[in-house]
């Protein structure tokens, strides 16, 4: 292997080591490294130093609910069941055992995914939930909503239970901006009958959030649909369906 006593590549080698080169430069350097043991060694040494930088980390305390959150996102619960009566077996997705803030923490996941904190209504509801939190919250079910039309709209719905209270939290994205009095409306469907779970608007990114308090006598439902309505006053769907389970 020939060595080139006066290589003047050191600046290019460092760019190569950190991966900040064009394909052409990269190719040129790799070809040179095959022939030049000095540069080859230099690259190894620079790379060792570069790879050690992250070990300068101060260890940070990991939030206790993070694992649950990560695993829940990777392993979503089974597809929408025939009826939400099957709740009991879903309790393994439990947030119990966490601090009294568990309920809030659970909903924070939604807020986190959404990154939409400027929704005042949700914010107020979170504050309200926080103040009465003796029972830990559990996620009973996660539904994913798919676009009814070609397009990138999608969404997730979380069904939380805390004590006797049940709440649906919707996070929807990729929706078109509404015009005039238009609003999106959420429908809970049971045996072909639809009841409204509320209306929402989307932000400039097409993201919307809605929470809905479930009442015991309204249970169960077996599908969720979202329509774009001419206004927010309807009790039955009039506009076209945009998302559904």
């Amino acid at each position, binding site marked *: 292997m020939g060595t080139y006593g006066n290589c003047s590549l050191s600046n290019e080698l460092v760019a190569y080591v950190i991966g900040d080169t064009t394909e052409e430069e990269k190719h040129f350097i790799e070809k040179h490294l095959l022939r030049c043991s000095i540069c080859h060694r230099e690259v190894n*040494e620079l790379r*060792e130093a570069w790879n050690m930088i992250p070990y*300068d980390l101060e260890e940070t305390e990991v939030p206790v609910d993070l694992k649950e959150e990560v695993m829940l996102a990777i392993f979503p619960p089974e597809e929408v069941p025939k009826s939400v009566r099957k709740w009991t077996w879903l309790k393994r997705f439990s947030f119990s055992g966490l601090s009294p803030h568990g309920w809030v923490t659970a909903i924070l996941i939604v807020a986190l995914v959404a990154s939409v904190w400027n929704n005042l209504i949700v914010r107020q509801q979170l504050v309200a939930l926080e103040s009465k939190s003796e029972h830990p919250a559990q996620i009973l079910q996660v539904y994913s909503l798919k676009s009814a039309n070609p397009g990138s709209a999608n969404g997730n719905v979380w069904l939380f239970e805390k004590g006797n209270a049940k709440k649906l939290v919707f996070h929807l994205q990729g929706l078109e901006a509404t015009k005039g009095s238009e609003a999106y409306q959420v429908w809970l469907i049971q045996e072909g009958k639809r009841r409204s779970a509320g209306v929402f608007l989307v932000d400039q990114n097409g993201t919307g959030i809605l929470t809905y308090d479930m009442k015991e006598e309204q249970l169960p439902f077996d599908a969720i649909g979202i329509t774009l309505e001419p206004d927010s006053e309807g009790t039955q769907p009039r506009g076209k369906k945009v998302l559904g389970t």
Partner: protein
Amino acid sequence: MRNKSDTELMQLVMEKNRPALEELYDRYIKLVYSFAIKSTKDEQKARVIVQAVFTRLWTTEKGYDPERGQFVNWLLTITRNMAIDHLRAEKRNHSFVPIEPERWDQIADHPENNPANVVSRKLLREQIEKAYRYLSRSQVELIQSLYWEGYSLSEIAQMREEPIGTIKSRLHQTLKILRNHLVLEMEE
């Protein structure tokens, strides 16, 4: 799962074994999370990055190749790329070089420089801290923008209004100093 090596666990993850993924999470969450915090200085963003990293482990098709270096370095490279992608998405008004998510550089296989095997991370951190004391302020800043914040060399040159050659040679000196002092510390 406890007595399996990282490589064995990653193999199981490729076969869609959930307990293996959970074990890797337990082993490395502290490192990955600390990295994401250092990079973003924000808990919510760090959570998003952690999510992205473990989702990537679960869905990777190429997988981890032990021939190319240690698992921990591969994991940190993914973490850094995810963090940088995230930071870049936030600064969309700049133009950035796209970066291939699984690109990573192998660490040289000299055992004395093999971070996880020879010295504990804590010890290594102390040593790096010592080595950092030999760096000038502009050298420390360079590492911050380049490594942790994911700016490219040309972006840094622009921001600092310095020729790119100056930035490259500063980086060269910085890495040399770090390495020389680390090697010295380890030989003591």
